[in-house]
């Protein structure tokens, strides 16, 4: 490309990824949440489904989701603000779109997971 565009500068700004320690912490958190999920699903209290089963499960699932996306996929630790934000924007809008659209579908079926 032309001379003026070659600015190989973005390498030094980029990617202050989390430390290995932080990854481990996230991993342990994920492990704990998964265990909690399984436990919650198996205890007698939640046997017949209902909000008592579903709501906490959803919270835990979303937490895991955010942890993986945020930490492992570098959506939060990226110090390069634009970078992380921008990807959140793409991914988040897809996610939001999917959630809304498919929830509406369920609604028209009078569908309930409870």
């Amino acid at each position: 490309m032309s001379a003026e565009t070659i600015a190989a500068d973005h390498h030094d700004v980029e990617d202050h990824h989390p430390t290995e320690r932080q990854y481990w912490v996230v991993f342990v958190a994920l492990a704990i949440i998964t265990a909690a999920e399984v436990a919650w699903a198996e205890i007698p209290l939640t046997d017949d489904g209902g909000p008592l089963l579903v709501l906490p499960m959803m919270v835990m699932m979303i937490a895991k989701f955010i942890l993986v996306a945020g930490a492992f996929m570098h959506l939060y630790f990226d110090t390069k603000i634009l970078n992380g934000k921008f990807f959140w924007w793409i991914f988040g809008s897809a996610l939001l779109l999917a959630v809304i659209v498919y929830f509406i579908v369920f609604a028209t079926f009078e569908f309930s997971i409870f």
Partner: protein
Amino acid sequence: MADVATPAVDGHVDAHHDEHHEGHHTSLGISNMKLAMWLFLGSEVLLFGALISSYLLSVARFNQERAEGNPLVTGPGTELFDIPFTSASSFILLMSSLTMVLAHQAIHHGDVKNSRIWIGATAALGSLFLAGQVYEFTVFYREGLGFTTNLFGSAFFTLTGFHGVHVTGGILMLTSLLVLSFQGKLNKDRHETVELVGLYWHFVDIVWVLIFTIVYLVV
């Protein structure tokens, strides 16, 4: 299938490109490949959203039909799930996400040897997960749930099968990374290639996080 392979394909290509042209000028200051990967993942969100929704609706209808006593609806339903085993395999996939970031971390710091180890570990854990899926499918089949048995069978095998195909694609990418690495082409400068495969891998993991909770634990 093309979807699956392209990132790896161009991951390599782009890295090559970078080498000869230094930093590409990009308007957002982020690499094209990374942007494209995120866009692709955005599209995948809708794909899996539709699959999970279809699954949920199908299972709801299946359960209702059973409750109604439709004599045409036979074969087992969600009671087949073996939660302890699936918990274990979910956990395996989570582990592989950790090894994946560690691989990126290593290559980012220029540690080629460790990056190979972690990539290999990720691929191995992925394969183990898939072996678990083969196991699970076989058991279900033996227990009387075929792909065509009933609505639940079709929906379940399709959803988890789609995910399995994605995992397979990821493993192929990881293997390609290993090959590149042994050819000496995977070094610090190309850490982004690893990052891209990682993004894909974590995404597949995330999908499993959803499937595990929604399909196995909740519904």
